[in-house]
C-alpha cells in the first residue's frame, strides 16, 4: 500500500477549465454582472459574488427520450393494492419517479471571485489620458541582484562562484592533483624494485580512490545568483468628489451621485495601488467632509459652484502635487447655479482645475421621473457646454435613473481612439 499526501499539490486543477468556461460564457456573464451590479449596492461590487446566467448556449445536448408509457417500481407502499388507480400529479409538475433527471436547470449560478467580478465589470474601460503622464498602471516590481543562494533555477547557476567553491573544497579535502597521480605513474613505470613497486601501486590506488571520493564538483558547491524584487514607485491617484448639497438635491440625486463615485472608486482602485478620496460638499460655501456627512449630512443654502472649485484647488495645492498624483474629479449637481457665479466658475475650471486633472466629469442628476432629454439645459450645463466647445477637456452626462449610471460610466471611460473626445 502506498499513501500519498496530495494536499500540498496545487489545488484548483479546475482553474483552467473554469477560465475556459468563463471565456466561453463571457458575454453571458458580463451581462449578468452588469445586471447584478445595478441591483445591488455598489460597494458590494468589490465583493464579487454570485451571478446567474441562463443555460442557453451553455448547455450540452444529449439524445433524451420523453413521453410514452412509463413503468416504475417505487418503495414504500402503504395502502395500494393491485389494480388501484392513482391520480396523475398536476401536469409536468412533480415527477413520481427518478426518471428523466438532469432535465433543465433553467438558470445556473456562478460564483465569481472578486477579481473576476471586477474584471468583467470594468472590462473595456480605461482611464483617459493615462499615457500622457506616463504613469504605470499598477505597481510593478523590479529585480535586483542580491548575492548568492544555495538553491535556484539552473538558469541562474553562477559558474565562477561554483567553480571557486569547488576549488576551495578540493584543496581543503586534499583531493590529489592530476600531476601527483601522473608523477606516481611515471615512477611506477620506471621502477624495478619489487617492494617499492608494491608501495607505489598501493599509493596510487589510495590516491585514485580519494579522487573518486572527492568529486571535482559536488552539488554542495553549486551556487545560484539570487535576485530580489524591488518595488518600484507606486502610482497614486486622488479622486475629488464634488457635490452640490443645497436643498434642491434630493436623496435620489445623492444616491445617483454616490453610485457614480463608487464606480469611479472601484475603477481607480484597479489602476492604482493607492487611491485617496476627497469629499467636498458645497452650498454657497464649500467644505471638505467625511463620506458619511457627504452623503447624509443635511445642509441648506444657496448654490455657488465656484466655492467647491476654490476648495478643491486649495487642497490640490497643499496636499496633492500634480507632479506626483493623478487627479480625478467628478462633480455631481442638479445644475442650479447662481448666474453671477458663472464667470468665476468658468475661469477657475479652465485656468486652475482642468490643467491639473487627468479627467473631470460632470454628472447632472435629475429626478427619477424626468426624462433626461426633456430637461431644459441648466445654467451649469450651459456653461460647461460652452467651455467644452471652446476646447476644455470636460466630460458631461445627464442621469436620472439608477440603471443609467453604469452605461454612462462605461460610456465615459470606454476605450477610444486618440482623436475621439468624450
Amino acid at each position, binding site marked *: 500500500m502506498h499513501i500519498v499526501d496530495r494536499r500540498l499539490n496545487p489545488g484548483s486543477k479546475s482553474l483552467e477549465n473554469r477560465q475556459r468556461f468563463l471565456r466561453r460564457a463571457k458575454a453571458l456573464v458580463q451581462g449578468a454582472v452588469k445586471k447584478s451590479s445595478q441591483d445591488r449596492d455598489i460597494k458590494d461590487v468589490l465583493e464579487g459574488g454570485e451571478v446567474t446566467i441562463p443555460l442557453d448556449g451553455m448547455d450540452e445536448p444529449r439524445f433524451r427520450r420523453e413521453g410514452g408509457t412509463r413503468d416504475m417500481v417505487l418503495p414504500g407502499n402503504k395502502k395500494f393494492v393491485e389494480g388501484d*388507480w392513482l391520480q396523475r400529479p398536476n401536469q409536468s409538475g412533480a415527477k413520481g419517479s427518478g426518471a428523466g433527471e438532469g432535465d433543465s436547470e433553467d438558470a445556473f449560478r456562478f460564483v465569481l471571485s472578486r477579481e473576476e467580478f471586477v474584471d468583467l465589470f470594468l472590462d473595456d474601460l480605461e482611464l483617459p489620458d493615462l499615457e500622457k503622464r506616463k504613469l504605470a498602471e499598477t505597481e510593478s516590481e523590479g529585480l535586483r541582484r542580491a548575492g548568492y543562494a544555495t538553491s535556484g533555477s539552473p538558469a541562474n547557476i553562477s559558474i565562477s562562484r561554483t567553480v571557486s567553491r569547488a576549488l576551495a573544497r578540493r584543496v581543503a579535502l586534499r583531493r590529489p592533483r592530476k600531476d601527483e597521480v601522473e608523477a606516481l605513474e611515471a615512477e611506477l613505470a620506471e621502477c624495478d624494485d619489487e617492494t617499492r613497486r608494491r608501495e607505489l601501486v598501493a599509493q596510487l590506488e589510495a590516491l585514485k580512490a580519494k579522487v573518486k571520493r572527492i568529486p571535482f564538483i559536488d552539488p554542495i558547491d553549486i551556487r545560484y545568483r539570487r535576485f530580489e524584487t524591488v518595488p518600484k514607485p507606486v502610482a497614486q491617484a486622488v479622486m475629488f468628489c464634488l457635490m452640490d448639497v443645497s436643498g434642491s438635491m434630493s436623496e435620489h440625486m445623492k444616491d445617483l451621485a454616490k453610485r457614480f463615485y463608487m464606480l469611479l472608486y472601484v475603477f481607480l482602485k484597479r489602476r492604482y495601488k493607492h487611491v485617496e478620496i476627497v469629499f467636498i460638499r458645497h452650498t454657497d460655501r464649500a467644505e471638505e467632509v467625511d463620506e458619511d456627512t457627504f452623503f447624509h449630512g443635511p445642509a441648506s443654502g444657496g448654490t455657488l459652484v465656484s466655492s467647491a472649485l476654490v476648495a478643491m484647488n486649495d487642497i490640490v495645492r497643499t496636499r496633492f502635487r500634480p507632479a506626483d498624483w493623478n487627479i480625478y474629479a467628478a462633480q455631481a449637481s442638479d445644475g442650479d447655479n447662481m448666474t453671477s457665479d458663472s464667470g468665476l466658475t468658468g475661469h477657475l475650471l479652465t485656468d486652475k482645475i482642468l490643467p491639473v486633472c487627468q479627467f473631470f466629469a460632470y454628472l447632472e442628476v435629475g429626478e427619477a421621473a424626468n426624462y433626461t432629454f426633456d430637461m431644459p439645459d441648466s445654467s451649469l450645463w450651459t456653461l460647461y457646454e460652452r467651455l467644452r466647445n471652446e476646447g476644455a477637456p470636460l466630460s458631461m452626462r445627464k442621469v436620472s435613473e439608477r440603471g443609467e449610471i453604469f452605461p454612462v460610466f462605461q460610456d465615459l471611460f470606454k476605450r477610444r481612439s486618440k482623436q475621439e473626445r468624450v
Partner: protein
Amino acid sequence: MGSSGERLFEGADWDFQTLQRVHDACEQIARTELGLDVYPNQIEVITAEQMLDAYSSVGMPLFYKHWSFGKQFAFQEASYRKGLMGLAYEIVINSSPCISYLMEENTATMQTLVIAHAAFGHNHFFKNNYLFKQWTDADGILDYLEFAKGYIAVCEDRHGRETVERTIDAAHALMSHGVDRYPGKKTLDLRAEEKRAGERRQHEESVFNDLWRTVPNTKAKSKAALTAERRRALLGLPQENILYFLEKTAPRLAPWQRELIRIVRHIAQYFYPQGQTKVMNEGTATYVHYRIMSRLHQQGRLTDGNFLEFLQSHTNVVFQPEFDDRRYSGFNPYALGFAMMQDIERIVKTPEDEDREWFPDIAGKGDVEGVLREIWSNYRDESFINQFLSPALIRRFRMFHLHDDPAESQGIKVDAIHDERGYRRVRRELARQYDVGFVDANIEVVDVDLDGDRRLMLRHSTVKGAQLNETDTRRVLQHLADLWSYDVALTEVDGTDKVLKEYVVSPRAAAVAA
C-alpha cells in the same frame, strides 16, 4: 483471526501511521475472511477543494481541459457552498494501482470506513466483475489519460483552441452513443492504443508531402457495382456506436479529429461498466465495509464510540426514503445494493422455505463469501436484480409497480404490489429500470447515401412510445452533421416501422472539418 486488543486509534485524529495501520487491519480481514482479491492500493489524502476538482473531471486525477468541466465545477462548487450538497467521503478510481481519495477532514473512523469501502470493496469489484474485465483496462487508464491530455494540448497548439473545442463538444454530445454494448473480438488495451496513436502520428508526419495536397481527389472507381446490401456491410452498418462510425468513415475529418473522437470514445467506454453496475458496485463496497468494520469492532480494534460513529454514517448512507417522502429521488443504490447483499447472506445461511423455493442454488449453501464473490464477478445490475431480488426484500421495501400510460384517462395504474401475485412482476420491472439496453435510446446509423448527397441516415427505434426531445435532438444532430460534414437525417420509428418523426440537419458552413 482474533488478533484482538490493540486499538487502531483513539478519538478522531489520525496520521499517516494510523492510515497504514488501518489499511493493514482491513486488508487482513478482507483477504482472509472475505477472500477478496484486489489491485494494489494507493491512498491519496486530499482537501475538500481538490475533491471538488476531482468531481468535475469525473473523478479522474488527470484529464484533458475542457470548458464543460469548468461549468461542472462551478455548478458543484456553488451547490456545495450553499450547503445543498455534501461532498462524497471518497472517490475511487478503477485503475491499477487502485487510487482512493480520502478527504483530510474526515475523522479516523471515517477514514477507516472509506478504506474498507473503497480500497477493498470497490477495488475487488473493479478487479473481478466481468464487465470491468471486458471493457476496462485498469493498468492502462492513467497512462492513457496522460496521453489524451497531452495529445489534446498539442492539438490546441497546432490547430487552435476553438477548433479543438468544437470537435470535443461535438464528440461529447454523442458520448453516450460512443460505446460498444456487446463485446466483440477485441478487449481494450489502452497502452497499445496509446502507442498506436503515436505511431499513426509519426507515420503521418513522415509521409507528409505537400505535393499531394495539389493532386485532385481520386474519383470513386466504379460506383455501379455496389449494391445497397454490400455497401452497408462494407460500412459495418447498422452501427450503434456512432462515434466509432464517425471516426472510421466520416469523409472530411482531419486525422487529429479522428484521434480526438477516439479519445472521447475510449473514455466513454471506460465508464460504461460503472453505469451498469451502480447498485452492485455500491452494494458490494457497502457490504464489505460493514463486514470489516464490524469485525474490527469485535476484535476490539475500534472503540465502542468509534463504532457508533461508524454506524451513524453507515445508516445515513443506506437510508432509503419512501416514494412519498420529499427526499425521495429513486432507489438509493447503496440501500438497495447493501440490502440485497445482506439478504443473500441470509438466504445462504438461514433460508426459509420460500427462499429455498426461489433460490434453490444458493439457499442454505453455507459459504456466504464464496457465493457473494461469485455473484460479484458475474452479474450486472439488471441481471443481478432479476436473479436475486427476493420476495422477502420486496416486502421489506414494500415495493410496488406503477404503469403510466398517457392515453389512459383514469390515471396511473398500480400494476403489481408486494404480494404473491406481484413478486415476479415487480422484480422484472425493477430489473428493467437498470437495463442499459432499455434506458438509453436505441439509435443506429443505418445507411449512407454514397451515390447521392452522402447523407448519413440514422434511426431511432422507439420503445413504449417515448420519442426524443426535439430541441436537444436538433442540437445533437447539428454536432453530428458538423463532424460528418454532409446532411444528417434521423427517423424515429415505432415497433411496426411506422415513421413517427423525421429530422434533417445540414452542417454549419465553417464547421469542424477544414
